[in-house]
Every structure is written in C-alpha cells, then in structure tokens.
C-alpha cells in the first residue's frame, strides 16, 4: 500500500494546516474541522473494511524497506481504534462548533484538535517505536495547549501538573527506546519482536519493559501514576475534556497492549502479573476517588482511571478471551465516556455549574438529556444489555476461567461502586429537585436543542448497538485479540516473512 495507512495522519494534518491558514475566519475553520473529521471517519471506515478479514495493512513510508524506514502497520486492533477516533472526531467537533467560546476558536482550537487527532491516529498506525514516541510528543503538546488554552487559573494549574508528569513519561519512554535500540539495533516493532524472540536477553528486557510500562502507565493513568488526570481533566471546556477522555489515556493503554503483546511477551509471569496487580489497584483507586467527589466532571474524570484498570486487566490476564474483553472495553468506554462528558457539558451549559449539590431537577425539565445520561451511565456501570455489560462480563469470565480470583473480586466490587457513583450523579443532578431554582442559562429553541444533542444521541445509539449487535462485535474483537496473541502474522506482514 502506498497511501491508505498514512491518511489517518496526513488528513488531519492537512485540515490543521488549512485551519491555520484561515486563521481569522472562524466559520471557515468550523467547516474545515467538520469536513476533516468526516474525512477521518471515512478513511478509518475504509481501513476498517480492508483489515476486517485479518489482513494487516502495511506501508513503508518513503518506500524504505522494513526495518530501515518507518513502517505503518494496521492490524485489527489499530483499525478499530482508528474507527473510534473517527467517530469521536465527528461528534466532538460538531459539539465544539456549537458549544465552544469564540476566543478559544480564534486562538487555534480547531488546528490543535486536528493535530491531537493526528497524533492519536499516528500512535495507532505506526509500527515503529521511535515514531510512536513522536506521535506521543505531538499529542502531548497539542493536549497541553488545549488544556491551557483560555488561560484560566485552574486550567493553568492543571496543565502544569499535566505537562510535568507527562514529560516524565516521555523521558522514560525515550530512555527506554535508547536502551532498547542499544540492545537490538532496530526501532521497528516487528523487528524488535523478532529479535526478542530469538535472543536470550530476558533479564535486561524485563527491566526495559518496566520502563515502558511506567511510561505508558503514566499516559494511561495507571495506579499510582494517574495524578495528572484528576488534576487536569476537569479544568478545560467540555469539548476538550470529552476529547481527552476518549483518546489520551486510551493511547497509553493501546501502546501498553501493543508492546506487551508484541515485544515484551517473554516474561508474562512477572510482567503481566505486575500489570494485573496494577490493573486491580487502578480500578479500585479510581472508583474510590470518584466516590469521594461531588462534582460531575471530577467524578467522570477519575472514573476514567477506574476504567483503564479494566482495560489493563485484560492485558494482565493475557488470554485471548481477556484481550477480547479489553478491546471491547476500550471501544465501549471511549464512546460512553466521551458521551458522558458531553452530557455534563450540556448540563453546565444549561445551569452554569457542575456541582452536584447545586444542580437538580433536570429529570423533569429535560427528559431527553436525562435519557441520554442514564443510558450512558448504566452502560458504564455494566447494566445489560448495553456495551459495558458485555465488556465487563467477558473480562470476568476470562478471569474466572484462569481462576484469577483476586482480580475477579476486585472487578466485581468496583463495578458496584461504579454503579453507586453513576446513580449518585443521577440522583443529585436529575432526580433531586434543585435546592435553589436554577433558570436555564441558554434556553434554546427546540430545533437547536435537538441539533445540540445530536452527537450525544449518536454515541448513545452506538453504545446500545454494541450491546444489541454484540455478536459481530465479539467476532471482530476476538479476531483482533487472536492477532495480538499470535504476533507472528504481524511480524511476517511487516518484515515480509524475513
């Protein structure tokens, strides 16, 4: 392939460049951003269609043969991630066009958003370790600026924590790359995997693996490395938080899955055992932190941590079924969590606050919004037959199958607490009458309100669809997991069977 795998990177870049050139024309920027988002979705659909039979789409950038140039390699996991990015791009940019304030748009929100998408996509398509690092830098820079854009005090305080801890991750990542390159003389993931399987460098490899685990763990929001997340996520506007919640930590989780199935799979007892312990602590710590919060965005933000725990649980269990669960969980949580943040943004738009104690009465006032919230919230809590249920039960079954009781108990307990904190939002924001009457700050006419809700309706429908059409979803996810568990096909596809 000469082009297709690079499009997820180049299309958003082109869109961003155009937006930058149309610096003064916000309307044009909106149009470009929306159009680019649709193109991203379209591209990812095309890629999805061409890889869903298990083909790995490989492209050697600059026609330099692997492992010498940079290789882009898209397997089923990558292409489902791309698809999710596409879905997110469309919804969030539509929401942003509607909801974001003018100054932020004027100072580059759209190019930054598109470049964030470029970075995320880059991370999902690349088959090269250093290139992965580059995409991490792209999305770190973009996200840092998006966080700080607007310059409010809370934003700045949050973004400093964000950038410092994430730079720590970058440093570890880079050091890890250096050492690994010193050991193997290559940066191509497939080539690395190939060499690792040949050589007997187990001990050292395990140590390097831990550096990567830490680097990705910080990105993913693993316990006890997640502090940047609750400090920064609840500070920017809803559109930004929604985008972040859907993408940033997931790139970390994705990279962790990629590296620990492809390259670092030689010492699963120790490494994956460690990931499993981390996963358990992550889900527990995240949900406890959420339980202690009384601010809608904060609850949702720290819940991300908890959900990362579930995703990593699948990797830690390291069976095909468990990875199937992780993949479904990834897809589920990206959609649902983004949606919940959008709903929270809508609540804030109406009532001017995220504070659980001040809010109330939305169940009577806004039945549509309530419905959107409760479906997503219950999906997150794992109420069947929504997407979260299937994701969770797969992981539980996988855990029980290999009799990993501790993680099963933790996962079940955490899901109860998740339910608790979701119903807390529901009871406080929707059911409870408002302690003091809160007039609608932005009484929109019906048609406009409907357009505003449209992205949320879309995500809700997807969440339900993942549940209802769980059959095909599972077929796909388990194929993808099988690819991860048997990386030889990936290696062969990239190296051409060397």
């Amino acid at each position, binding site marked *: 392939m000469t082009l297709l795998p690079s499009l997820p990177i180049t299309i958003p870049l082109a869109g961003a460049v155009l937006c930058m050139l149309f610096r003064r024309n916000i309307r044009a920027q909106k149009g470009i951003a929306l159009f680019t988002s649709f193109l991203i979705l379209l591209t990812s659909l095309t890629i999805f269609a061409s890889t869903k039979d298990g083909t790995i789409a490989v492209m050697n950038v600059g026609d330099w043969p692997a492992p010498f140039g940079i290789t882009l390699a898209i397997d089923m996991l990558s292409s489902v991630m791309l698809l999710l990015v596409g879905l997110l791009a469309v919804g969030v940019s539509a929401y942003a066009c509607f909801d974001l304030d003018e100054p*932020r748009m004027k100072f580059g929100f759209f190019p930054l958003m598109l470049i964030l998408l470029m970075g995320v996509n880059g991370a999902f398509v690349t088959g090269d370790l250093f290139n992965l690092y580059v995409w991490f830098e792209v999305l770190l820079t973009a996200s840092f600026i998006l966080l700080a854009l607007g310059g*409010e005090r809370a934003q700045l305080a949050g973004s400093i924590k964000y950038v410092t801890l994430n730079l720590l991750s970058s440093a570890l990542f880079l050091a890890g790359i250096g050492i690994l390159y010193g050991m193997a003389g290559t940066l191509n993931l497939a080539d690395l995997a190939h060499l690792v399987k040949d050589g007997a460098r187990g001990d050292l490899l395990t140590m390097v693996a831990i550096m990567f685990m830490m680097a990705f763990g910080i990105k993913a929001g693993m316990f006890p490395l997640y502090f940047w997340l609750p400090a920064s996520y609840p500070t920017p506007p809803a559109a930004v938080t929604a985008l972040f919640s859907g993408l940033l930590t997931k790139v970390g989780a994705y990279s962790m899955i990629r590296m620990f199935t492809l390259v670092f799979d030689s010492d699963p007892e120790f490494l994956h055992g460690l990931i499993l312990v981390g996963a358990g602590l992550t889900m527990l710590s995240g949900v406890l932190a959420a339980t202690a919060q009384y601010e809608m965005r904060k609850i949702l933000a720290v819940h991300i941590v908890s959900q990362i725990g579930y995703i990593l649980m699948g990797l830690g269990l390291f069976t095909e079924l468990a990875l199937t669960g992780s993949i479904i969980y990834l897809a589920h949580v990206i959609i649902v969590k983004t949606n919940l943040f959008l709903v929270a943004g809508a609540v804030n738009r109406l009532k001017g606050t995220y504070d659980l104690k001040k809010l109330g009465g939305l169940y009577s006032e806004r039945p549509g919004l309530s419905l959107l919230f409760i479906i997503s919230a219950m999906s997150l809590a794992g109420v069947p037959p929504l997407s979260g249920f299937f994701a969770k039960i797969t992981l539980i079954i996988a855990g029980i199958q290999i009799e990993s009781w501790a993680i099963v108990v933790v996962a079940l307990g955490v899901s109860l607490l998740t*339910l608790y904190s979701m*119903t807390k939002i529901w009871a406080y924001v929707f059911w409870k009458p408002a302690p003091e009457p809160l007039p609608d700050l932005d009484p929109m006419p019906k048609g406009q309100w409907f357009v505003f809700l449209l992205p949320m309706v879309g995500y809700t429908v997807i969440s339900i669809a993942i549940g209802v059409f769980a059959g095909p979803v599972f077929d796909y996810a*388990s194929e993808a997991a099988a690819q991860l568990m048997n990386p030889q096909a990936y290696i062969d596809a990239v190296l051409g069977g060397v």
Partner: protein
Amino acid sequence: MLTLLSIIFIAALLAPFVHRLCPKYTGAILVTAPIAMVIWLLKKIPEVGHGHPVTESFQWVEKLDLELAFHLDGLSLLFALLISGIGSLIVLYTQGYFKGHPQQGRFMMYIIAFMASMLGVVLADHLLLVFIFWELTSFTSYLLIGFNHNSPDARNAALQAMLVTVLGGLFLMAGIIMLAGAADTWRLSEIIQRGDVLLAHKNYLPILILVCIGAFTKSAQFPFHFWLPNAMQAPTPASAYLHSSTMVKAGVYLLARLHPALGSSEEWTLILTTIGTITFLLGAIMALGQKVLKRLLAYTTVSALGAMIMLLGVGTSYTIKAMATFILAHAFYKAALFLIAGGITHETGGETSVDKLGGLRKAMPISFACAILAGLSMGGFPPFFGFVAKETWLHALDHYPLLVGATVIGGAAYVLVGFAVGFKPFLGKMPAELHAHEIPLSMRFGPIVLGLCCLAFSFFTGSIGHNLVQPAATAIVAKELEVHLHLWAGFNKAFVISLITLMIGIGLYCSRSFLVATAGRLGVLVKFGPDAAYQFLLNGVLKFAAWHTRVLQTGILRDYIRVTVLTTVALVGAALVRAGGFQRWENLAPVSIRIALVAILMISATFATVHSKSRLRSILSMGVVGFCMAILFTFFGAPDLAMTQLVIETLTVILLVLAFHHFPPFRHGSKKRTRATDIIIAASVGITISLLVLAALHVQTPTPVSDFYLEHSYKEAHGRNVVNVILVDFRALDTLGEITVLTIAALGAYALMKLKPKKEEGGE
C-alpha cells in the same frame, strides 16, 4: 416467545409517546401487549402440561456462546402467567392511579419494561440471558422505587434496593459463570440434567453459596430483607407488582429452577431451610407491629418469600407442590391487597396509616368486597385459595414439627395482616376528617379479578392443580409427579392446625394495639439490624474513599512526581534484583581525558544550576550543560547535531532572558529536609538508569539499522550527509511529526500569551 417479549419491550419504549398522543387510553392501548402474552401462554398449557416444553433459540453472541434461548416448561409457565396476567391488570390500574400525572408515560414505560425483563428471567434458558434480564429487573426497579424522585426517602430507598440487589447480582454472576464452567454448558435445560456432575464438582459449594446470595438478595431473604419494606416508597402499582408478586420471586424462581442441579445436598437443605425459616418468622413477626398499610403487606411479603425458600429447602415433592400452590395463592391475595391499599390511599388523599382509617365500606363498597376476598384468602380461611395452599403446606410438613410450629406463628400473623388491611379500613366509624370515594373504573379491574380468583380457584382445585401446579412442581423436582389439590381434604391434622392458627391470628388481631405499642418500644433494636449495617457499611466505604483521595491526591505536584519516580525506581529495581543483580562491569571502553573533562564540566554545571541563588545564573549554567553536550556530539562525529544543539542552546537562553521580566521574584521554595529527600530520589533515578544503560551496552547488537543508512544514503537517497538524509528521507515521517509539534508549540505559546480570560468571568 422472543417475538412476544420484543413486543412488550417495544410497548414500553412507545409508552411515553402513546401517553402524549392519547393520555386517556394509554393503559388500554398498552395492555394489549401483555394480554397477547397471556393468551399465548394459556394456549400452551396443555402442551406444556403433557411434558412438552416449548423452546426457541437464536444466536446472539457466538464467541460467548450466548444465545437468545427460551424454554417454556411448567415452572416458567406458572411464573410467566402470573407476571403477564397481573401485569396486565397493573397496567390498567396505573392508568387510573396516575391520572393526570405528567410523568405517567414514563411510569408506564418503566413498568412495562420491567414486565418484559421479568418475563425474560423466567423464560430464558441461557444462564447469561437469565442474568441479563435479572439485572434489568433491578434497574427498572430502581427507576420505579425512585419514581417520586422529589422525595429523598424514595431516592434513598431506590439506591438501597439497587445496591443490595445488584450486589447480589454480582455474586450471582460469579456463581453462574462457575456453574456454567462446572456443567460445561450455559443452557439451564442441560444444567439441570447434570446434578450428579455438579454435586461432585470441586466448586459445588462456592457455586451454591454464590447463587444463593444472588437469589436471597433479590428475594429479600434475611439478612438482606431490609430493602423490601423500604422499597414501599415506590408508587403502589409498582409495589404491588414488583415487590410482592413478581420481581421478589425471581430468587425463588432461580433456586427452584436450579433445584434439580444443585438441590440434592445437605448444604442446600441446610442453607435454604435455615435462611427461609428465619426470614419467614422474622417477616411475620415484624409485620405484627406495623401501622402503615403498605409496610404491613411488605413484611408479610418478606415472610412469604421466606416460606417459599423454606419449602424449597426441605425439597420433598410434597413441599414443592405446596410451594407452587402457595406461590399462586400469595400472588393473588397479595397483589389484590396492595392494589386495594393503593386505592384507599389514592382516594382518601394520601392516608397510609391503618389506624387513621375506618368506615370506608359505604364510600368504597367495591374495594371492600374485594378486600374481604383477598384478606380472608391471606388469612387462610376456608373456602379461599389461601386455605387450600395452607392445607397443602401443613400436610407437606408432616414430618417437620419445628417447621409446623413456625407455620402456625407465621400463619397467625397473616391473619392479622389480612384483617388489618382487608377489614379495618372499611369497618367501624369513619373519622371525621376523612373524605373518600370509590376508585375509578380502570383501577377496579385488578382488585376485582384478583379477589375473585382468590375465591374461584378453590372451586377448580382439580384443574388448577393439574394444569398449573403439577407441571411447575414436576419441573422443580425433575421427575413425574401427580398433584391433586383439595378444598376439603377431610378433618385431619392439618385442618386442626389450620384452625388453631386462625384462632391465634384472630387473637393477635384483637391485641393489635398492644403489639403496635410494643413494636414502638422495641424500635431501638433497629439500630442493630441489617438496615443499620447497610448504612454503616455504605458510610464506611464513603469515608474510606474520602480518606484515600485526601491521602493520594494532595494537589501538590512534588508529591506526584515523587510517587511516580519512586514507583519506577522500585519496579525497575525489583526486576534488577530478580535478574540476580548487576554483574557486568568488565569490558567498558576506556575513557579519554577530553571526554572526562567535558563530563566533569557538565556535572559541575548541573550542580551549579541546582544550587545557584539567582535565576540568571541557573539559566547560564544550564546553557553550559547544553554546550558540553554539543561538544560531545562533535567528539562522536555528529557535527549536525552539535550545530543544532548550539543554536538551540543560544536561543533558549535568549528566549528565557526575553521572558525574564514576566517571572515572579526568585526564591527557593523548598526546605532543607525536602531537598535532601529530593537529592536521594534524584540520585536513585540516575543510578538506576545508568545501570540499565551500562547493562544494555553489553548486549551484542546484531546489525544496527544505522549500517543500512550509511550504505544507502548516497546511493539511493542522493545525500552524503547521513544525518540529514535520516531526517528528511529515511525517517521523514518523524520529522513531519516534530515540525508539527513545533508549529503547535508556537501556536500555543502565542495563544497563552495573548488569550487571557476576561476578568469578570473569573474561574469558569
């Protein structure tokens, strides 16, 4: 079956729209869905009665072996009929009960969705499918209990019911997954044939306990019973339907269903009989002291559920016959009484206390008539169906004198409650402040039909026994048996005990005011009950969560960095120790003097950076580090890098100086102690990374890709400067990424400098 279920689910989804279009006939339109189900079920009675279950199955999730599999046998049929039959009546009742209520459509939606879910529980043949519907009933129950969402009590009760039942649901989930693993199939109809395998399986006991906890929470068994009386915050149609006649029986259903698979062990008998009997007695005794109509009924429901579990635990074919009969009897009289109680409250302007009601017979004659029928059936008076059930039950417990004793106490309490709800509000003098009128037509169907059934069933005992009870009991026992119910079984022991029970019950009713007063005095005991334990536990978790968050999320960046860094060092260190420590010092390349000099300069500059007392000096010292790096690059033959590094360092210094006057005054924020700690932490990181790098040097690299670059740079990439060719050709994509980073960094720097929040907005 799937079609009918889907129709009911669709009816639920459409309910709000139907309500908006024709609010007066919402109930009448929507009730057609459950009635279709009833008709279909009635038509299947002969077939199922002859031992031919109706089955249906569609693939859903192949990779999980999850099928939409349904299986209608006698047990399912009995429950499904109750659910859809009573459900139809409830839908009609709701129409009148919520007349003019703005959220009636939503209520209809929830209750019909519940009905569909509950039907799913009893019809599904796949364990996961059962669980899916099971959780859906918990969820719809949450929405129904909290329907009066403006009341904090309703919200708390909803949460409590949900947490308890979902907690049980999680145990159940683990239980069924293990059960399916042990039986090697998800299909209930196959599992129940593998009782021997399961009994011998190493996981038998855990499975049994997990499944029991799931069933007990749902069916409000001790010590989880407390949520049910609290759930009476739900509007009456929901209480009548979910919390007396259907949902709470899901646990009973599940255990009955699994009886052939798990039932033939001592553990089963022990657990079920003990818990069932305790719940039976506890519920009955607690009911004695209640004042509120719905709570009287709620506690007897708890008790009745306990009785069912008890009978199931004993597990002889007699007790199971008795259980099936009792389920039937209980569903009718309890639902009827609930609906009448709801009607009374509805038509008297919200009065809920038994003792403030009286003399309603004139205002509400139809309700009164129905109440008599249901109340007497509940008390177990002949010739009502409650009596038939009680007779069968006593007869079945012939060899269990203790349980007979318990039955007498429980039965007496039922008499009291039957009288208190069925007679007390209607007899005597009407209090002056009470105004009442008869319930509207739509609300009459339920009480009348149910009340009449309480009586009429007694005269068709043969047919009922043969067509409903016998197939159900057969399914539970998993062997052929005959059921012959009799209204009049002769003047035997059971009848005598029955009479004694009735007399004690009437006695209790006469001394009710004393009982209520005693209960009031014993109210302090509640502090030690499971309800208090629930609160204690919930508060404990919340407190722990708050503490955990305070300790971990200090909000101080330094703490976060420390934790992050120390975790890394600890884990890498652990791997190092695990690998047997670091053993490779030999073989290092000799260090030349010029390199050593540069290194020393770098290290000193680093110290100077950290130690300097002015910002300018720090910046300059840092610049020295950068310049040294450039020198090192030239030593190792990378002039490009050296040049770039030089320019970058210069520019950094210039930029920092430019930005200088925006900075706050310079000060050392940290104390000596923290600095000392920081030094240790920093040093540990440095040492760890250095060790790793040293170790990595010893690995023989096969052929690094850089060799390829040297070889192909000029030949194929038209460039002699390999570094540049790498940047713009071999790895141009990296460069593309990096210049993007630069671009947005500039964009960001510009935005951060120029875009300031408006003063009046403050913190958004």
